[in-house]
């Protein structure tokens, strides 16, 4: 927090040479502040995944490894997939809804009228989402530990997957916020796309159909689940094929976002 506080402290005085990094820290600090002050976002982002793991723990806590969960125990399976779900929620879900709401309220237009460069605004959002995701994953891993899930060993692969996943799902979230025009529709549209995808990607239940797994393997959610399950539960490193699919979806999201994003509540 020291960087953020330094950024906070400099706000009042006439700035001299302003570095991009400080601007970014400034942005992240205030994104974090708004986020933590809003009880709704904090509760939904952090309580829901933990409760989910707790319920799964209550249901399957004692059971050992099974072929139904692909040779893992139930909780070994759910810790990474619910981890992935929480990243999806705090990146894709949050951004799609929050940006649509901010645009409708005129907050984006207001920011556009300041000298803050667009890249700094979006980089600030991304860094904010990565931070929230890290906290989320840490909570879920800790909860899983209470049910005897061993701690992961490949932290580097996890961080890499996490950052890439967060970036890709942020891009997709901004893309969705760009194509929907009113804030009331945003949560519905975001969930409508996400919910079936979560089911066929094995987030809630392992999928036993090879065909469905192959199809879902080309969509964004399953590769992310798999890329996290490897280093979390199977003690493997980064899964490059899954990461490549994820990155490709992120790139698609970024292109749509760059082309279609509007700051103004009213279309030109």
């Amino acid at each position, binding site marked *: 927090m020291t960087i953020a506080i330094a950024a906070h402290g400099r*706000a009042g005085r006439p700035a001299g040479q302003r570095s991009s990094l400080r601007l970014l820290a400034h942005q992240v600090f*205030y994104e974090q*502040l708004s986020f933590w*002050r809003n009880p709704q976002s904090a509760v939904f982002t952090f309580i829901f995944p933990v409760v989910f793991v707790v319920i799964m723990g209550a249901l399957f806590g004692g059971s050992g490894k099974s072929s139904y969960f692909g040779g893992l125990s139930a909780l070994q399976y759910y810790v990474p997939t619910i981890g992935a779900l929480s990243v999806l929620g705090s990146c894709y879900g949050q951004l799609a809804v929050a940006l649509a709401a*901010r645009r409708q309220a005129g907050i984006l237009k207001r920011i556009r009228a*300041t*000298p803050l460069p667009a890249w700094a605004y979006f980089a600030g959002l991304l860094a904010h989402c990565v931070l929230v995701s890290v906290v989320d994953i840490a909570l879920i891993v800790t909860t899983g530990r209470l049910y005897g899930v061993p701690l992961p060993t490949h932290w580097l692969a996890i961080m890499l997957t996490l950052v890439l996943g967060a970036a890709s799902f942020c891009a997709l979230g901004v893309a969705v916020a760009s194509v929907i025009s009113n804030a009331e529709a945003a949560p519905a549209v975001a969930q409508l796309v996400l919910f079936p995808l979560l089911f066929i990607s094995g987030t809630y239940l392992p999928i036993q159909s090879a065909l469905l797994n192959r199809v879902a393997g080309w969509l964004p959610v399953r590769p992310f689940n798999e890329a996290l399950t490897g280093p979390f539960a199977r003690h493997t490193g980064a899964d490059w094929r899954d990461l490549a699919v994820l990155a490709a979806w992120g790139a698609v999201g970024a292109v749509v976002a760059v082309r279609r994003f509007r700051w103004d509540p009213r279309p030109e």
Partner: protein
Amino acid sequence: MPNAVEVSGLRKSYGRVHAVRDVGFTVGYGEIVALLGPNGAGKTTTLEILEGFRTRDGGTAEVLGYDPGERSSARELRERTGLVLQDIAVEPYLTVRETIARAAGYYQAPRGVAEVIGLVGLTGLERRKVRSLSGGQKRRLDLALGLIGNPALLYLDEPTTGFDPAARRDAWHLVHELRAAGLTILLTTHDMEEAQALADRVVLLSGGVVVAAGEPAALGGRDADRARISFRLPAGCTPADLPVSSHPANGMVVVETDTPVQALHQLTGWAIRHDHALAGLTVERPSLEDVYLELTREGAPAEAPERTTR
């Protein structure tokens, strides 16, 4: 010294709707200029072109020496302009101080946060959450965000819409103070009283064109216009009995004249001689409202559909 804002022949269409057809005006440094007109006259579109939110279809525009449509200089221009939009746009969960400090961080040389809080009259509320502020206080916060970058030019889009009369007086007072501090202000309003109270010059828009421009007191030539003497016709009299020519209006008799002193002398002399009271006697120049209604009616031909700006 060149002008802060120079606009000529500005055009902007949305599909087949011509929101702005031919708008030209200037704003001198240190001046308060009001774009006045009914909804859909093109005020907000004009302002948004100058703010860089919309591209123009034609004409020239220059703001503080920059072309507002030029992307490469957009950031430099934004360093030097502030704006307050029609809608209050502030995040609910930050405090007043945090909201202003965040915006301050976006500028090279912002004003002091505490100074701006004092300027807009939010002292004592620094630690209050934005969502617990009243509508008027949020509006002040909005204004603080427009001022924090220490702009040379401030845009106010319908700054007092929805204000109660006391809050409106306060806002007007604040605008005058800002001008006294050297700010140039371009505002839009559909309220004639506001234009009259605030503006050094008024640009009256209707149907996307400028129908009149000038000092509020002289707009549409109303300072040189005919005076209107009105009163109730005394019982038992007909208009033909009067010593001056007149016409009826709203149950009153109206005398329009270039020489009100003589006309009044004749009228009152006649009334005294015949022992008549001239009930409800008033003498007035056309009000800004009269000029406004007259000009905006003529200026908005039926075949030009207006795009409602909110």
